[in-house]
């Protein structure tokens, strides 16, 4: 059944809300307004204000409240409007959500799901265009996933709610209008997916960059270079086994990551490939990341700053020349 990424997230939340009365949605403008990106449109009418809670602009309080409610046995979905505002709640995430189980010697678990949008590409300038998934992927005690397809947008919400530990779902905002199949291939939450097979180079990416990476692979096919595209899906834990299986075949790898290059997820992936797959490499692992600038407003500048299919293609061409 074909639908959009936005509706897929909503369908996932609706199924959860119907199936389990412990589940409730909390976040800024998720109720009456229907969600800043219209993801939760209609849920208030269907489930009422108790379970579709519009929160005041107090990120630390309502993310902390989500953690508390989870400690007390609820299964909250907290929507932080964008990753840019999530910085205000990082103390609750890192010092409470991620640490409570360990600090309590295993007594507590925090079955919390936090969704937030991420990424640039809509000319919103520096403060509304961050891609900081790596900050979350750095923290032991939480899981981080990035649905890049309509199927994952739906499946990951449900899988995350099943997980007894905190799961952070990063939805790149440019994906909301994306159309695709709702049914998922049932891959577990922590496994990467091979979205295109090939034998000459491995392109590793996630979330909003999948589209441009597939586009690059298409162009490269014209050169007779067959790129294998791997969608990480999970940013923590990272499924390096699937990546290395591919690199063992292609011996070349480029990671495409919308985060800033320094200390990015792409840096971590490159390092793990060198640590575990050194002898597979016919070329040093490469990265295509965002330029290290606060995201500019002007379109031509933003486009130049962001990873693009062209930059991916030229990175690969330099390796196979």
């Amino acid at each position, binding site marked *: 059944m074909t639908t959009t990424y936005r509706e897929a997230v909503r369908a996932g939340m609706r199924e959860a809300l119907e199936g389990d009365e412990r589940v409730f949605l909390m976040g800024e403008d998720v109720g009456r307004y229907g969600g800043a990106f219209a993801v939760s449109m209609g849920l208030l009418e269907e489930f009422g204000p108790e379970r579709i809670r519009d929160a005041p602009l107090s990120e630390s309080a309502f993310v902390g409240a989500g953690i508390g409610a989870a400690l007390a046995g609820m299964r909250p979905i907290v929507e932080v409007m964008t990753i840019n505002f999530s910085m205000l709640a990082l103390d609750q995430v890192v010092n409470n959500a991620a640490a409570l189980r360990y600090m309590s010697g295993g007594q507590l678990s925090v079955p919390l799901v936090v969704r937030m949008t991420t990424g640039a590409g809509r000319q919103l300038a520096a403060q509304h265009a961050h891609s900081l998934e790596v900050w979350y992927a750095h923290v032991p005690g939480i899981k981080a996933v990035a649905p890049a397809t309509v199927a994952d947008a739906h499946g990951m919400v449900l899988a995350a709610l099943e997980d007894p530990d905190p799961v952070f779902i990063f939805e790149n905002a440019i994906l909301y209008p994306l159309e695709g199949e709702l049914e998922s291939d049932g891959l577990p939450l922590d496994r990467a997916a091979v979205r295109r097979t090939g034998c000459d180079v491995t392109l590793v990416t996630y979330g909003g960059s999948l589209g441009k990476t597939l586009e690059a692979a298409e162009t490269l096919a014209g050169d007779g270079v067959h790129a294998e595209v791997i969608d990480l899906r999970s940013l923590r834990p990272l499924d390096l086994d699937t990546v290395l299986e591919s690199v063992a075949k292609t*011996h070349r790898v480029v990671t495409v990551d919308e985060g800033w290059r320094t200390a990015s997820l792409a840096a971590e992936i490159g390092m793990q490939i060198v640590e575990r797959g050194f*002898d*597979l*490499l*016919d*070329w040093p692992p490469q990265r295509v990341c965002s330029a290290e600038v606060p995201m500019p407003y002007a379109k031509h500048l933003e486009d130049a700053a962001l990873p693009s299919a062209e930059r991916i293609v030229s990175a690969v*061409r*330099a390796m196979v*020349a």
Partner: protein
Amino acid sequence: MAEFVMPMLGADMSAGTLIAWRKQPGDTVTRGDIIAEVHTDKADIEVEVFTSGIVEKLLAEPGQQVPVGTPLAFIREDGKAPVAAAAPERVPPLEPGRLLISPSAKTLAAELGVDLAVVRGSGPGGRIQRRDVEAAAAAVAERPSPPAPPVAVEGEDRQAGMRRAIAAAMARSKREIPHFYLSEAIDMSAATRWLADENLHRPVQERLLPGVLMLKAVALALHEVPELNAVWQGERVVQSEAVHLGVAIFLRGGGLVAPALHDVDGQSLDELMHGFRDLVSRARAGSLRSSELSDPTITVTSLGERGAESVLPIVFPPQVAIVGLGRLVERPWVSEGQVLACPVVTATLAADHRVTDGHRAGAFLTTLARLLQEPDDL
């Protein structure tokens, strides 16, 4: 960035020696220009370039002998801006004498037994990549047994040239592996009779090929002469408990690979047949595991029904021996003063004289022949 590679200039040419460059870095070349002069065993040939553009970088120096297919220069094609070099990150200088090679190319070279000193790197700064190793290996593999044609010297007739070429090949091998060869004609009447009778009673899917009898016999014969079942590790030869036979499989498009059948001495003929069939199909489908390439402790090669009567195989480093099996042929055979027509296979053992000697190698071949007289015990 296009490459100018050592061209194939003669049917049996495997390498060529660069005599001189006719273009320098920065010169513009158009398709068809003479870019270099190359010496082959036939003649000195002026070589043309097939891409128009500007010579970016020369990779080989005059006087160097280079396998066919190895990149000699980079040509930046017309209309292509130089590849947008990323901010030239300062690369720490390499200490002299250090070989610039990718890790994967180094692993592959070890697997295929390619001598890296000969390989010319096509990567940045001359770094050796997989394709350079593959090109070098392919150049070696294309002539499984006949030694490289001799390098022509003025005023010498053809026969003397051939002898000198074999001497050159042997000298090169001796520098690496001092081969010695022993052959034995083996009476296969008992084996062929046993096999025909065995296959008569077996459903088609379980029929046995003569090859499996040979493999099992070779494996058991190695118990008598275990020093042949060994591999070089650095400066030491290490005898292997396990008998993993490298089975030479010829690929239909040309080229050869010899992956391992594991623990052949312990397997039944049926198990061996199953393993052999699986190995051949995976070899041809290109889905062998790299461990299968590096596991063999000795190799067996046979040119099959349409091959030669006897084969002088070259040992696959790091192994120390190889068994070459010729074609099954009908031959007159004297037995108790009687002359009979008899199916015969000539088995040749090539071995590394640093590790063993003719006397022990001879024992191996006689044991092999004896085992094949009692097919029931295999």
